[in-house]
């Protein structure tokens, strides 16, 4: 069930939402939580019912391991041993489902020995629920969380707005919300805001990401068979740059919005990443919950910046390489991660250098030159990000190299099959990119601007009427967007593959 589909929006969501508040009112919060957890299991099983035992087993195992860690003094084994064992089991499971064939193929290529591939299907969302639970185990070990209620734990992991493609959650930011009694009462204001997030996310996905996808697909599909020219390469890569941002941030907005309908706030995952003026800044704005996870549980665990400059850069490189590999079992993701690692190291090096010579730099304080410097920094950051996206999207490193060669010099003729790169398409792509760079993002629009206005409206004599009207109008917008989505080929969210 995709969020923009009719069966999700018009059947699943209304039933689950109505059931949640009805059970909460008639039978209490525990039953409502159980209903939500069961509904989330159903949501997961709807994708591939065969994966359901894996999810249930993973939850049971990690809950048990977490309980052992939390009961450290009384537990028969040391909490550290349990932590190491539990993380190993999680990683082995992920490795088996996600990386076994990649490892076998790589070993075959390196050693020249033919090894048969394993017949395994990647369970949807495994990377997300594994990371969420590893974070829980580590936080349990650090004494940051205590969870005695298996139902709440199951709900924390399976909660359907985030289950398939994040955000990657911390136990500590979710469980207090499930424990609050007001969560189980419908709150009109949160519902309007939730619907607004849902509408904005849907619009991003349906109107922009799905429109850019054919241009990107045409280039990356063609790259495997034929040469592409410079204009086609830039056109396709720009289209993918737009597609992945609007697709993933659209999904994240929908997740935030859906969760708000249930009175639960999820963390934001994006903060206008294409406004970034450096790669360091980019990673503070892109897939923020994964960046947070990688920083807290990998980079810091490796020593972070506590062991000197060289070690810091090495840790950064390792973190980004593994971050790349987390996305998929392919060398293209390793290269993507490696590239970002290298960009980050260069960025940190440059910052260090700039700090030393800042006074001598002409533009650092000049009111006229500074905006030029900022624009150049934004353009350079975006170009680096786009270059890396080529590896992220390409089917192979060879295809990626072919596209990069086309982007930066090698000029071929027109290639049948690659999307038309007419002026209208360029203008449309440019507008979409400009919007991502200039316009306020979803949380700025909804939480920053809409919310205060709604609160003022709610406080006025016609408050109920006004908020109700806002809700009705947003529902019509959502229905219309769902209709538009239905009129096109079904396209999954990009991050559902990870």
């Amino acid at each position: 069930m995709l969020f923009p589909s009719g069966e999700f929006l018009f059947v699943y969501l209304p039933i689950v939402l109505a059931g949640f508040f009805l059970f909460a009112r008639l039978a209490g919060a525990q039953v409502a939580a159980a209903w939500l957890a069961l509904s989330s299991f159903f949501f997961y099983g709807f994708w591939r019912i065969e994966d359901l035992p894996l999810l249930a087993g993973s939850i049971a195992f990690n809950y048990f391991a977490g309980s052992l860690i939390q009961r450290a003094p009384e537990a028969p084994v040391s909490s550290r041993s349990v932590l190491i064992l539990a993380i190993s089991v999680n990683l082995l499971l992920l490795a088996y489902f996600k990386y076994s064939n990649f490892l076998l193929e790589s070993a075959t290529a390196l050693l020249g020995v033919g090894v048969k591939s394993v017949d395994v299907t990647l369970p949807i969302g495994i990377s997300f629920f594994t990371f969420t639970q590893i974070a829980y185990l580590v936080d349990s070990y650090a004494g940051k969380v205590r969870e005695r209620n298996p139902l709440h734990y199951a709900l924390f992991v399976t909660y359907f707005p985030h289950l398939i493609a994040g955000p990657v959650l911390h136990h500590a930011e979710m469980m207090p919300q499930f424990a609050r009694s007001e969560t189980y009462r419908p709150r009109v204001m949160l519902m309007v805001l939730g619907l607004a997030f849902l509408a904005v996310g849907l619009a991003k996905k349906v109107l922009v990401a799905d429109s850019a996808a054919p241009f990107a697909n045409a280039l990356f599909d063609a790259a495997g068979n034929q040469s592409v020219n410079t204009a086609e390469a830039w056109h396709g890569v720009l289209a993918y740059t737009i597609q992945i941002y609007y697709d993933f941030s659209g999904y994240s907005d929908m997740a935030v919005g859906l969760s708000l309908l249930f009175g639960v706030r999820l963390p934001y995952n994006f903060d206008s990443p294409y406004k970034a003026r450096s790669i360091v800044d980019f990673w503070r704005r892109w897939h923020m919950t994964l960046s947070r996870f990688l920083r807290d549980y990998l980079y810091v665990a490796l020593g972070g910046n506590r062991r000197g400059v060289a070690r810091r850069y090495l840790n950064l490189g390792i973190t980004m390489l593994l971050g790349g590999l987390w996305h998929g079992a392919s060398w293209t993701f390793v290269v993507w991660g490696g590239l970002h690692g290298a960009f980050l190291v260069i960025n940190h090096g440059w910052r260090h250098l700039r700090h030393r010579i800042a006074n001598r730099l002409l533009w650092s304080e000049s009111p006229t030159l500074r905006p030029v410097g900022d624009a150049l920094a934004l353009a350079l950051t975006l170009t680096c990000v786009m270059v890396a996206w080529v590896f992220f999207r390409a089917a192979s490193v060879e295809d990626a190299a072919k596209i990069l060669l086309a982007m930066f010099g090698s000029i071929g003729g027109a290639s049948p099959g690659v999307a038309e790169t007419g002026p209208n398409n360029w203008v449309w792509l440019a507008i979409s990119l400009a919007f991502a760079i200039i316009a306020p993002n979803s949380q700025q629009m909804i939480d920053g601007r809409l919310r205060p206005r709604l609160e003022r409206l709610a406080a006025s004599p016609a408050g109920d009427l006004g908020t109700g009207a806002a809700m009705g109008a947003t529902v019509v917008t959502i229905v219309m967007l769902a209709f538009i989505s239905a009129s096109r080929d079904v396209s999954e969210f990009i991050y559902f593959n990870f």
Partner: protein
Amino acid sequence: MKQRRFVGVFTGFAFGIILALATLEGLLRLLPIQGGIHAADPNDRWPIHHMEAHADVHWSAGWNLTNPTRRRTNNLGYAAPFDYASGARIVAVMGDSYVESVMNPYESTVQAQLERLLGGAIPVYNFGIGGSSLPDYLGMATFLNREFVVERLVVVVGEGDFVEGFRPQPGHFFWSPHDSRLVELQPDAFRDPVRKALRKLALLRYARGNLRLSANALFKSRPSTRTSECGAADLLGGDRELIRGFIDALPTAYGLSPERIVVLFDSESQRRTMYDPNAARRDAVACPTRDGRVLELLASEARRAGVQVVHLAPTFRRHFTTSGERVDHSPNDWHWNAVGHRIAATAAFDKMGTKAAGGHAATQSLLRP
């Protein structure tokens, strides 16, 4: 207090929905959305499905209203910028929405381009209506012969044209289940005034026309997975006889010798494969279907009977490979564009055996001996 709040929110909610719908309706009325099919009420002179006479036809494709086109119907309710003159000697072009071609300016259509190739000396009338199928092309002969003198016939056949003929639709011919007749006319129906009024709503026209909204489309949730295995595609009992009967009856029905009939075969699935850059890598081929097999049979039977047959797929492929130019409005709309229509018109013209003669001589050769 709680109840009052609930009533307030609920009233506001309903008001918000109405306001948003009214705003959308107003907005869509300003935009070039599809005008919908304004089917004419049935009449005895022309009881087959056609559009209202002298009416505007607005077309655009997809949610984002690409390729907006404005056309007009003529006195007989077909999309053409001139009235059809009763008793005229004509070249008739039969087909479905590909021939109706409301997504192209009239000058780009196969009928207009063919008329130009023929030097303009004989009018080319199109009788294309969306939803038509093989039985229509045969059944309409009676009415065409009653109104016009058909000198040549061009039939555009596409995928689905055989199997769609088994579903009786108001105003359309269908394969007759009775042995005595090959095709039968499903009587056209008067349109309900309520439905007529509803069809004027821009929201409905946008949903049905541009978005092609249906319950199936709305409740699909997974990407279509094309497997390498194809389903069964065998002919059913009676298919062969129907096709033989059709091809034998066609020249007689129009009173034409078989070589005066050109059948143009198009394949959307082959065009889809043609544009797919990974098709070669995947060794992709369009899956055979019952309809596809029947159309193959139709082509061979037509050749046997002396009818002129053109498969457009190889010509389309050649054109795309050499120029990179698409022959249709894909990916939003798979109907032919001006290029596709030009290729089809040239192919029909070539088969008419008049290319060398040209001009007036061509016209002479078109007329019956």
